[in-house]
């Protein structure tokens, strides 16, 4: 199995090459088959790897030496331990479903082959990210997925706004990447290696000298902020919805944006030494969770709502990481991948049926026309809102419980509030979209249709996963059998939780906490039903909004603030430096030297006035002076 490890990323890479080079000439069926087939192959291989490492072992496979300068030696090598095997399963599994879905969704697009090539390249990069056995390999994947994200957001490049969104995503990611890169430098300087094993073995020497690990952890976290769209670098993710919907599902919900979580979890033994860094992560995560959820309340673009929801859920995952509950975060990554991919693909199905319409104010009453989509969307909504026994219920509850356990009631309350807001906007989204009267145009009404099977089957599979996914890691006090399976599985790859075992909450408190959040979430859903279905409220037009609603709808004007604070000054600085510093000052000096010598010449040449008498006089005077100098 070990020798087949490199095949897992290179299968999608082969798909990328074939589709990229020859896709234009291949029939669409072949392109789709190659695209999804390679991912399926990778998934099956990942399953085999998973079964090998299930007992906590790890396997490595080195391909060649990538870089070797002095003591810096980096191998192009792969590592599969429980953590990366789990991520591989998510990436290839969800990735495969989304590939299949895309065959239907992108069928009429002329860039069909290009789409699959990019998607395969993305899976390749993502697999590099999680399978690399050193920080540089991680960085390859890290930037690679950013690049694919750029390519896919800008997929419909004729639209300038989309191209702009793509650029924004890449650049904001790069800001984070710089942090990550500096963190990698510091890791190398400190530990003398970039290989995970060697670094994490070296960590023990810094038990009593925490500030270097803290700085490293903070730098790495800057990278995670960029990739996982946390405050302050989150604004690219909602804009990234410009890409085709399967892309939003795969890259901007299920996999790529969770790379930051993976990074922190991977470096958990470093973070274990840096409690202050964990605090920063927790605060950032919680703030993002609430902030993004609030914005989600007043968005009217079906994908934007889901995008802010993603940002908010990522915040929750970081909260879990900040609590030292690494496996909980990975658990939520897993369930989130299921239900968020489901929601996005469901939204895609809606958009597909409406011929590109994304504004929920122009939808309504779609449950009859799109029954399958409706039901899977209901499941997704319930899962994310924390409906009992669905996947989101378990993973979210675990996050809340760990928060309470680690930081107390206030933190728990804030986290729970973000969960309530989530239920609110998801309820609003569901009811406004699928209930009530159809509010679109007549042409759209005539066009309404359920998506083809190639799209609905992945939806159904994801719906099933969203329902049962929670049982991967049921809390022990529920006695549902196989309790905390995922935590035990992941344990060998993660550092022990920061909280000592003795602190574990008693079952009664856990029941109480779970009860409160669940009941409140259900209440909120019912309330949303009352407001949007019974009273038939429809979100108002932009111009009729109340001040607070407008503030939310305009995303707290963060984009405008960034534009004012960073983009414009940079552009202005660029122009000013070019004109004043470069042309006027520096080049002015250079030209000044030239001009000075010219001026000097202009003065001296006046001696050459052409009049022979002057020359003669000068000659005589010169001769006289020469002779005279003999006598001095």
């Amino acid at each position, binding site marked *: 199995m070990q020798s087949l490890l490199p095949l897992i990323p290179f299968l999608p890479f082969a798909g990328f090459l074939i589709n990229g080079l020859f896709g234009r000439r291949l029939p669409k069926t072949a392109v789709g088959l190659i695209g999804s087939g390679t991912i399926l192959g990778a998934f099956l291989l990942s399953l085999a790897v998973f079964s090998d490492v299930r007992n906590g072992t790890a396997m490595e496979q080195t391909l060649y030496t990538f870089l070797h300068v002095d003591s810096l030696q980096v191998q192009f090598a792969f590592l599969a331990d429980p953590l990366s095997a789990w991520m591989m399963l998510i990436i290839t599994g969800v990735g495969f479903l989304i590939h299949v879905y895309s065959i239907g969704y992108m069928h009429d697009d002329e860039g069909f082959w290009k789409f699959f090539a990019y998607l395969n390249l993305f899976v390749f990069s993502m697999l590099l990210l999680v399978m690399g056995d050193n920080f540089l390999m991680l960085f390859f994947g890290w930037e690679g997925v950013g690049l694919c994200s750029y390519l896919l957001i800008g997929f419909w490049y004729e639209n300038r706004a989309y191209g702009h969104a793509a650029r924004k995503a890449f650049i904001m990611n790069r800001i984070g990447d710089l942090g990550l890169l500096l963190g990698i430098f510091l890791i190398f300087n400190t530990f003398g290696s970039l290989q995970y094993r060697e670094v994490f073995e070296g960590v023990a020497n810094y038990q009593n000298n925490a500030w270097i690990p803290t700085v490293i952890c903070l730098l790495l976290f800057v990278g995670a902020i960029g990739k996982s769209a946390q405050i302050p670098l989150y604004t690219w993710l909602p804009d990234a919805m410009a890409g085709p919907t399967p892309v939003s599902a795969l890259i901007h919900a299920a996999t790529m944006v969770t790379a930051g979580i993976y990074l922190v979890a991977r470096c958990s033994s470093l973070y274990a030494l840096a409690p202050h860094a964990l605090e920063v992560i927790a605060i950032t995560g919680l703030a993002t969770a609430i902030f993004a959820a609030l914005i989600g309340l007043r968005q009217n673009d079906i994908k934007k709502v889901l995008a802010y929801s993603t940002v908010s859920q990522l915040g929750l995952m970081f909260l879990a990481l900040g609590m030292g509950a690494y496996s909980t975060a990975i658990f939520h990554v897993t369930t989130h991948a299921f239900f968020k991919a489901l929601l996005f693909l469901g939204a895609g199905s809606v958009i597909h049926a409406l011929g590109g319409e994304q504004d929920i104010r122009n939808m309504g009453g779609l449950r009859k026309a799109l029954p399958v989509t409706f039901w899977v969307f209901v499941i997704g909504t319930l899962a994310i809102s924390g409906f009992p026994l669905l996947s989101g219920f378990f993973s979210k509850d675990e996050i809340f419980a760990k928060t309470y356990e680690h930081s107390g009631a206030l933190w728990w309350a804030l986290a729970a509030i973000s969960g309530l807001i989530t239920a609110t906007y998801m309820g609003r989204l569901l009811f406004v979209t699928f209930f009530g009267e159809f509010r679109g145009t007549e042409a759209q009404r005539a066009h309404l249709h359920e998506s083809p099977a190639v799209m609905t089957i992945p939806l159904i599979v994801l719906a099933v996963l969203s329902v049962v996914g929670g049982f991967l890691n049921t809390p022990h006090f529920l006695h549902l059998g196989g309790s905390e399976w995922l935590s035990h599985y992941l344990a060998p790859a993660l550092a022990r939780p920061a909280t000592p075992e003795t602190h574990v909450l008693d079952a009664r408190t856990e029941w109480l906490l779970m009860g409160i959040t669940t009941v409140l979430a259900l209440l909120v859903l019912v309330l949303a039903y009352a407001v949007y279905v019974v009273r038939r409220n429809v979100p108002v037009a932009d111009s009729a909004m109340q001040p607070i609603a407008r503030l939310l709808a305009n995303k707290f004007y963060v984009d405008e603030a960034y534009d004012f604070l960073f983009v414009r000054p940079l552009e202005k600085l660029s122009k000013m430096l070019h004109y004043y510093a470069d042309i006027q000052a520096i080049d002015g000096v250079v030209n000044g030297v030239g001009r000075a010598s010219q001026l000097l010449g202009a003065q001296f040449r006046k001696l*050459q*006035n*052409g009049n022979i*008498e002057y020359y*003669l006089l000068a000659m005589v005077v010169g001769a006289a002076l020469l002779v005279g100098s003999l006598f001095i």
Partner: protein
Amino acid sequence: MLDIIQTVPIDYFVYLSTLLFGIGVLGVLTRRNAIIVLMCVELMLNAVNLLLAAFSTYLGDAQGQIMVFFIMVVAAAEAAVGLGILVMIYRNTKSTDISLLDNLKY
């Protein structure tokens, strides 16, 4: 012959030729008529010739007088070329004023 010449002190020859040379220099510097400038140049040359001849006689060395012949040949050639140029200048400018000839400036 030698005796007669030697009755005149060598100093007098030096004074005379210096005077002649000075007149030549002043003439070259101050006069604007090209013909006069040329003549002044001749004057300077001849002042030197005089001095050379005088010293040659006093020292009994013929080399100085050989030099004089060279100078006379050169002076003759110079006068020929110079006057030729002068004629051309006159044809072009209808004048022999050298201060008009300042085209070779800057």
